[in-house]
């Protein structure tokens, strides 16, 4: 095979003619994000579109392009970077992805792509479509909430007599990957595990195998695939002196885990205590604002009317509003109920649960009680949010780096390993 010259973002590179653009770029040290691309599936699937670039002036996914002499590719223009980010955000918004409750967390390609692209929140509304978890297969569990329909398993997993084990079923927004109960039982142990590993998310789970190493290898936790990885934030003018600032914090529909994380900075907390005073906060047990604050930090989303009221108060009393943790950003774990109508949730919890006696219980309702909302809302759906810190919980370093940057203009640079969704 001949060697060709091609161009990425105006720089000259060389690769073998006919090799895949994603691979050729990677060999030359240029990172093109991709999810559905799987080296040995030919022709490539082109389903996830995450690797969209501008190739010879036209928008096309890099994975369906092979190297030709003189190929001109644009990869890292601001427009393309944002577009690819949007596509991954779209997947997070479309599925029901709860990283802290997922076996694949740490080894998940989708999560990894989120880290690489620095996605702290999806610009799209989460769709919360009700999807089932298929427990019927003997060997596997099909977690439809997590599937990104990349098609890898459809094209790669066959029984020894050449029959498909996975196949798309339905159409449109109802499309999902169906599993054949007869065929999956015929797979050998190692074939089944291969299918689980091939899945870029945690949609294919082999019973008894997913937690064999309790927390997996967490392959994507520590190091980026990009040479010069950088999480950026708008640079702020540096403030000369560290004047004392006031912070308020609250936990709405959250678990206080973010607050715990916030306190988890060892002796640094002593320095922090010098520099900030806490007003309304569970840390001080001050129930109502006594003054206007420089910064409000909110944990948890809104699941009832009281959360909304508190959140609005925070917006009113704080100059800058930061939400921390997945719950505050888009609902997080409490939003697991968002795919199910509220009535069903309440009746299951209060009336029909195994511990409730028929006719003995009621759904709590009293004028003094906050009213439960139809679903859990992210803070951004109620008030304007200035900054978001992802994580469940976010790492303490991440929280304090953001706070220090916002309050005193300290340089903000985040390590790859400090940015997590779980």
């Amino acid at each position: 095979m001949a060697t060709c010259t091609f161009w990425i973002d105006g720089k000259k590179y060389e690769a073998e003619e006919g090799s895949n653009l994603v691979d050729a770029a990677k060999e030359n040290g240029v990172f093109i994000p991709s999810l559905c691309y799987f080296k040995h599936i030919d022709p490539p699937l082109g389903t996830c579109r995450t690797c969209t670039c501008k190739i010879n002036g036209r928008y096309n996914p890099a994975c369906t392009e092979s190297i030709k002499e003189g190929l001109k590719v644009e990869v890292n223009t601001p427009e393309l970077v944002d577009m690819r980010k949007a596509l991954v955000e779209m997947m997070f918004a479309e599925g029901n992805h709860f990283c802290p409750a997922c076996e694949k967390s740490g080894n998940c390609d989708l999560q990894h792509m989120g880290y690489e692209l620095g996605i702290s929140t999806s610009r799209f509304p989460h769709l919360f479509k009700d999807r089932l978890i298929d427990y019927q297969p003997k060997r596997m569990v099909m977690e439809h909430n997590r599937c990104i329909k990349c098609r890898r398993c459809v094209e790669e997993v066959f029984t020894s007599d050449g029959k498909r084990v996975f196949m798309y079923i339905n159409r449109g927004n109802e499309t999902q990957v169906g599993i054949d109960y007869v065929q999956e039982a015929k797979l050998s142990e190692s074939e089944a595990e291969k299918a689980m590993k091939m899945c870029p998310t945690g949609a294919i789970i082999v019973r008894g195998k997913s937690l064999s190493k309790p927390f997996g290898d967490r392959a994507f936790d520590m190091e980026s695939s990009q040479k010069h990885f950088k999480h950026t934030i708008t640079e702020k003018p540096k403030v000369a002196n560290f004047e004392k600032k006031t912070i308020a914090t609250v936990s709405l529909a959250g678990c206080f885990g973010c607050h715990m994380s916030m306190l988890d900075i060892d002796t640094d907390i002593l320095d922090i205590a010098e520099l900030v005073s806490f007003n309304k906060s569970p840390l001080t047990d001050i129930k109502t604002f006594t003054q206007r604050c420089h910064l409000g930090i909110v944990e948890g989303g809104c699941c009832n009317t009281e959360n909304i009221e508190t959140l609005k108060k925070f917006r009113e009393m704080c100059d800058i509003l930061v939400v921390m943790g997945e719950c505050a950003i888009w609902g997080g774990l409490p939003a697991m109920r968002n795919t199910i109508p509220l009535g069903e949730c309440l009746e299951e919890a209060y009336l029909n649960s195994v511990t409730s006696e028929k006719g003995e219980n009621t759904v709590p309702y009293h004028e003094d009680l906050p009213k439960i909302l139809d679903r859990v809302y992210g803070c951004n759906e109620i008030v304007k949010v200035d900054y978001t810190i992802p994580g469940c919980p976010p790492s303490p370093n991440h929280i304090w780096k953001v706070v220090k940057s916002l309050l005193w203009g300290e340089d903000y640079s985040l390590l790859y390993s400090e940015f997590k969704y779980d």
Partner: protein
Amino acid sequence: MSTHSAPKKHFSVEPVRSHLLSELWQYQLQEGCISEESIKKLSAQYQLSEIEVAGVASFYHFFHQQPAGKHTIYINNSIISELKGFERMKETFERETGAHLNGVDASGTFGLYATPCIGLSDQEPAALIDFYPFTNLNALKVKEIIQKLKQGKSPAEIWDEPLDNIRYTPANNRTIFFAPYIRGEAIKKLTDLGPDGVIEQLRIAELSGRGGAFFPTGKKWDTCRSYKESPKFIVCNADEGEPGTFKDRVLLNNQPGSVLEGMVVAGYTVGAEYGIIYLRGEYRWLVNKLETEIQAFHDNGLLGTDAGRIKGFNFDIRVEVGAGAYVCGEETALLESLEGKRGEPRTKWFYPVEKGYLQLPTVVNNVETFAAVARLLQMGSFEYLKRGMPGSPGTKLISLSGDCKLPGIYEIEWGITVAELLDQCGAEDPYFIQVSGPSGECISVKEKYRRISMLDLMAQKDIRCGGSFMIFNSHRDLVHILLNFSSFFKHESCGVCTPCRAGNFIIQRKLERFKNGLADMNDLKELRNWGTIMKTTSRCGLGKTASNSVIQSIEKFNDYFASRFAATDNSTYRKFDHTTAVAEYERYKP
């Protein structure tokens, strides 16, 4: 001598797998659904896993997993139907049949479903009962129909044969499509012209694809001709799914001969042996007509061995019926569907002219293109060029519907302005016009002096109309129209690529905010940006064009949005519908 055999179901060169779609149809029609049992049987028969058969069946919305009633009713829920009274028809059907929409009544007699445009926008509200059309419905008529069915009449006895509603053809016998048709006139000229001559004629006439992409037909055929693999196929794309269009329905009903003849010409030109008409499931009622015409072609020696008495030219045509999937109008999805698979568009590594049906060279053209070819050869390019305008010769069939007095087919000469067309159809207070269907171009009445032609030059951008022309008056709610379009795309996306599968869903959610009065101009900006992302990153034409109407209407109807929605809300609170959010909980108030 030519053989006079009856139209065959499948050609001997087609592998067994390609029978799957018609076999699924057999089950659906005979048993009212494709049960798990049938899937088991089929998977054994075809040597496929059950999930693969289920995957194919569940792709098409005319295939049901549960019994769909002794009589299956599909009411059209396209935007035109909505304007003409879909809601009232739905209620009447529900009351008369006892079935709720998307369900079957208790006795299992009636199944009631909604389906996107059934190609009868000129006679809405309309419905299909057991795939027989019933048009211009009103509450009384629905009541009578259901009573008759209950009395044991079959839909075949009482259906409304749809009128062609040809409202306008160019004056002074300048019509191309509806001139008197004599079988074989075009085929007769083939021996004199030879394949080169045919392609030359197409080039001179600048004939281009009438499905809406306007790819030069001569070029397509010439490329296909250059490939040596055999056999080759000619596929007629009669999957006319774009909401608001029905021109192919009228052509197939009124001029089936010229369509078949165009296919024979194509077969001769590129050296193909087989022709397949992929007819959308909604037009199942046209199958008889087509098969009768195919038989007549055989009887006249225009199909079969030495077709058209051309030595060594063997050509046959069969009809394949789709099963409800808009995306199968995309040519590569159509080919997949023909092969008995899910109708998912292919990646564009190869064009069908090189590797099409069964990976063999295939010409896929629209119904109207084939009819135009036959007419062009019949009249000669000299005569043909007298119609239309320089650079865009000929005529075009336009399916016109919506707020006007005379919905129907307009055979326009290229070069007509929108204003003239609006005049001719008696448009009432036109305001918003959707050209070429939801995936096409939306225009404001302010642009009514623009021409309709194939010219698409930088300086002179005319409106290229693929067929659908829907007129909406100034009382229509734009957001309502856009919502109808986005829910259509949400259901009709093949589901393979992220931006189309999730994007259409997201756009619909966003539009609902507008409907509920929660949006401001910032939402409009987001909507436009998101639409652009879908446009640039989607895998096939469906996703790339699905957001067109949203993006364009934001550009062209900024006044409309500005007058109805708040300016960008800079306040720190988002609009939030408190009452709706707690409504469900309030049910538990003691």
